[in-house]
Structures are given as structure tokens and as C-alpha cells.
């Protein structure tokens, strides 16, 4: 719980990104600071990246590339929009983008939860490796490209080539899908899927009905290299 002694404020109009990240990496634990408020990010890149402790970071404003990149354990909330690669390669913890997210949100994330209240652009969840992503709005083309593990819940629509070359990740979509990518297919929702979607929506603070979602997973026809795969492989 935040109080004066465990809270620290950074104003990026006056302090540098390096000062912020250095504090988060080293001094926060030593000074027993657990809650950090960041003002005036003004689109700065690499904010709160490489965190490795259960910190709670609130960023008030829009951020640039790689906010909370490689996050581990921390909870990072952006009260604004995020540039490319939000929570890329996250291992654990939670990243919440209150606005929109640009390309490659959650790219190659291994664990944790990424919530995007608005839309996410191209390649959301690309190379996903086990994290969960909930998008309140729609996603751009090539989302979940080569996603290996984890779950992506899309409350809006999806553009072209959704789930191209999927491995074991599963996608749930509530709206329209312009097209599926190679080897992706719709599958019936199971009871387990309904429970999982309900849980993820709850964690994201959304109240859609799980039964409104459709499941997309890999047909696994490209798991092995063979002549009939032609140029799709």
C-alpha cells in the first residue's frame, strides 16, 4: 500500500530516463520504495524497462518504445498511450496500458499479463511465449504471428493474417476477423476456454460475456517441413 515513506515521484521534465531506471533497478529496494509515480513522460522510450522487483509504477502520460520491456515481477501502468514494443519480452508481473498501444505490444513475452484498454496496432503478441494479453479494442494485422504459447483475448476486431504460423498459443476474438494467417483456424470454444476467457476478462476489468468469443488455434499442418507446404512454410 502506498504511503509517503514507500513512494517516490519522478518528473521526467526535470529528471532523465537513466535516473529513473537506475533508481528502479538499484535504489528502490535499498530505500524500501515500492510505489513510483512518473510525471511528464512525454513519449520517452525505455521507461521502467528491465525491472526485477515487485514495484508498482504509475506513469502519467504517453510513453514511447519499450515501456516495461523485459519486465519481471513489477506492475506498470501507463495512463496514456504506448509506443512500439510495450512490455516486450515480459517474464512476469502486469503491464496495463490505459490508452492505445502501437506495434508489437507484448512481443515475445514469456509470462505475466498485458492489458491494453484501447486498440493495439500491428503484430500484437508476435512471437508470444507464454504471457497473457487482453486487448479491450481491436488489433492490427499479423497479430500473434508465430505465437508459441500464451493467450490473447481480443475484445474488438482483428485485421489480416491473425495468428499466422501459430504454435501453441490460443487467441480469443469477440469481433470480426478480416483474415486468418497460414495454419490458423477457428475451433469450438470448450468449457475450459470459457473459464479462461472469463478469468482474463476479470483480471483486465472487462465485463464481456465469454460466450461472445471465438477460439483460434494452430491447425499444426506446418509443424513439419514437407513438400506440400509449398511457399506457406
Amino acid at each position: 500500500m502506498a504511503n509517503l515513506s514507500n513512494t517516490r515521484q519522478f518528473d521526467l521534465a526535470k529528471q532523465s530516463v537513466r535516473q529513473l531506471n537506475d533508481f528502479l533497478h538499484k535504489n528502490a529496494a535499498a530505500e524500501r520504495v515500492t510505489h513510483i509515480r512518473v510525471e511528464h513522460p512525454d513519449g520517452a522510450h525505455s521507461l521502467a524497462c528491465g525491472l526485477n522487483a515487485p514495484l508498482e509504477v504509475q506513469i502519467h502520460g504517453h510513453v514511447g518504445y519499450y515501456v516495461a520491456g523485459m519486465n519481471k515481477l513489477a506492475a506498470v501502468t501507463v495512463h496514456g498511450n504506448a509506443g512500439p514494443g510495450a512490455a516486450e519480452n515480459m517474464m512476469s508481473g502486469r503491464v496495463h496500458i490505459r490508452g492505445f498501444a502501437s506495434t508489437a505490444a507484448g512481443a515475445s513475452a514469456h509470462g505475466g499479463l498485458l492489458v491494453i484498454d484501447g486498440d493495439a496496432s500491428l503484430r500484437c503478441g508476435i512471437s508470444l511465449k507464454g504471457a497473457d494479453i487482453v486487448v479491450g479494442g481491436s488489433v492490427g494485422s499479423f497479430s500473434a504471428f508465430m505465437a508459441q504459447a500464451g493467450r490473447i483475448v481480443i475484445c474488438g476486431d482483428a485485421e489480416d493474417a491473425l495468428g499466422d504460423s501459430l504454435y501453441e498459443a490460443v487467441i480469443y476474438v469477440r469481433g470480426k476477423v478480416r483474415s486468418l494467417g497460414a495454419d490458423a483456424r477457428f475451433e469450438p470454444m470448450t468449457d475450459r476456454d470459457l473459464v479462461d476467457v472469463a478469468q482474463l476478462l476479470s483480471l483486465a476489468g472487462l465485463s464481456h460475456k465469454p460466450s461472445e468469443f471465438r477460439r483460434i488455434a494452430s491447425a499444426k499442418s506446418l509443424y513439419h517441413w514437407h513438400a506440400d507446404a509449398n511457399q506457406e512454410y
Partner: protein
Amino acid sequence: MTRLQKEESAAFDRQTIDYIQRAAASGLYEIRGLGAKRRVPIFDDLLFLAASLSRYPLEGYRERCSSKTVLGTRFASRPIELATPITIAGMSFGALSARVKEALGRAATAVGTSTTTGDGGMTSEERESSKLLVYQCLPSRYGFNPDDVRRADAIEIVIGQGAKPGGGGMLLGQKVNARVARMRTLPEGVDQRSASRHPDWTGPDDLVIKINELREITDWEKPIYVKIGATRVFNDVKLAVHAGADVIVVDGMQGGTAATQTVFIENVGIPTLAALRQAVDALDDLNMRGTVQLIISGGIRSGADVAKALAMGADAVAIGQGVLIALGCNSDSYVSKGQHLSAVEDYAKLGTAPGYCHHCHTGRCPVGVTTQDPELELRLEPEVGALRLRNYLKTLTMELTTIARACGKQDVHHLEKEDLVALTVEAAAMAGIPLAGTSWVPGQSAE
């Protein structure tokens, strides 16, 4: 008596006929390991002009000649300091066994150099055995995680590989065992593809920001390398410098691979000799020689190759295939409990023989180097492999310093282009070095 005609077509020689017939039978392009086999201009096409009356040599066996090499001095607070400019190139756990990775680390540590991870992440064996370990950040991001970023000594962002620039990668299912699958978050036994593009950035301007992120994550301590496959090297090196690289690794077309299409290996990219010249020209053009270090790789085999690379302007080299051969790749036998045992029958089962094998992709390496098979991998004993590799790296460093002394240099990094001449017009043109016995550099000057 009928005369047997043996007039072979230059265009449709036996190799081409075999290629067409294989393609017709399978409907698939060939995938294989190792590097380009075609003849291209190489370091053998250069010679040293040692000291004589106009240059003063060092005493060959006694006088000190430094091979100390420092990489990553531009921005990193903890540059890499090596005892030799010969490093071990990135090769994946998956392509190689954990025992091989351990052997690489032991040998590198013994001679004071670095080794490098590969696609598939960092194994505990290689971290524990390597004093200096470069951690690759590849497009696939298989096994890539912040804990290993923090325990690495440098980060290498891989844009491309000399054997397959622009091509991504492939690890066939027979090598994806339980441990490899777990590290890569994939089902066991699937043919694993490695993407050709990074997931979270797309161009040189993005790369500036990506490098900055990695610097922030590592608190600006670790050198950031950028590795490119040799194609448009002059421009690519300039862009990598602009992006903020501390060290640039240029991998020529002779560089090896664990599994790539033959058509790619033999037809894409430019030779290491040409790539090195272009890379050095780019650094010179930006006045960044000495600020950004250059590592060249792709077909480096001997101390002479290393010396020529350094003379042309490289700060260090990286070796992959030579390292595997030192471990026993393409040897007719392997060592088990002190005994040399024949591997010839196992080569025959693959349809090949010692000296010709490039079947790394099958996972059935007869000498236990490029395999995940639990029985075959035992054929490489880490202690034996490490000793052989240590010997090889020591030999190369001794050859390098021998040549440097003969050229009158107290430091291998004092070797210079002026010490070299070319044997062929092609090598002279590519390397920008005069043809032996002339002052003619094709494309630069008239005799």
C-alpha cells in the same frame, strides 16, 4: 573396341545433374549444414610482405608481441578484455549439444577469449564454463530473458548470418528434444523456425531505440554488438554505427550454419574478404576506427587468416566451423574413455564420409558435435573437446604473433594493410590491396 566418352558438360556437370535429379525426386530444396563450398576469393589469396631492409623484424620466438584485445569501448562501462583477438562465434544450443557448449566455454576461458550463445538461449553449462560470454538477441528470442541478459558479459543483436543473410533459421524436429523444446517454448519434435525479422523493431531508426533499451536494462555496463550477414556491408556498417553499436560483427558468406537451404548458402551474400574491406571503409568514412570495434567472421581457419583480417582492419575475428572441426567435426573417429573409435560407418549411414559431411541438420553427427541424440552426444567428451579446441586456438594465436613479429609489430593490432599484397586480380579488387609485384589496386589506381 568402343571408346568410352567422358566429355563432361561445364553447365550440366555431374554435380548439377545430381542436383536436378534430387530436386525432381523430392520436390524439396536441400537443407544442409556448414558453409559455402564454392570457390571464392579468400585470405589465401593474400600474402604478407614481411620485414627486410625497409622494415625491422622482431625476434621470432622470444620478443614480446601483444595479442590483447579490448572490445566495447564506445559506450559500455565494462568493455570485454581478451588475451587474443580470436573469439568463438555464436552457435546455438540445439544445433550443438550442451556438452559441446561446455567444451567451447572451457577452451575459450583457458585461452582468455569469449564464446557466444546462439538461437535457443543460454545454457547453464556454457555460462558456468565461460568466463566471458556474449549473449545473442536474435529475431526468434527463443529462451531470451532478462536474467541471462544481466549475467551476460556482452549482448549481440543478430541482424543476419553470413550463411543466410535475410533468411531466418530452421532447426529440424529431430534435434528438438525435451530440453531444447523447453528452452524455446515449443513442442518437442517440431521443425522449429526462427524468424528473419526481429519482432519489436523494423529498421535502423528503431534499432537505435532497441539498443538504448538494452543499455537501460543493463545500466550501460555491457557492450552491445550488432551482427550482420555480409551483403550491403558498407551501408549496413554505417547504420549499425549510427544505431549506437559498440562492436560490429560482419559475417561473410563462408560462415557456417546448422541448417539452411543450399541455394541460400551458395548464392546469397558476399565473400568475407570483400565484406571486411567494405566494413573497414565504412568505419574509416565515419572516422570511427578504434571507437567502434570490428569483428570479422566467415571461413576464418588459421593464424594466417587472422593476421590478414587484422591487417585489413579488423579488431578481432570469430570462428565457428573451424572450432567445430577442432572438436572433431568431419574426423573419422571420436574419443571415448581414451580410445579412438571409428565413426566411418555412421558417416556412411548418412550417405557421406569424413571430410565431406555437412549433415548437421540431421542431428546424427557421427562424432557427437551437432547432435541432441543422447547416445551420439556422448561421443564428445567436454574435457577432450576443450583440450583440442584450446590447442587449436593457441596454435592460431601463435601463428598470428609469428607473422606479426616477422612484420616488425610488437602488437598484432599494429598489422596494417600496407603489409599485404594480393595474389589474384579478384582478391586485389575485393580487398583493395595491390596485386603482388605491382602497385595496382584494381578500381583504385593505374600501374
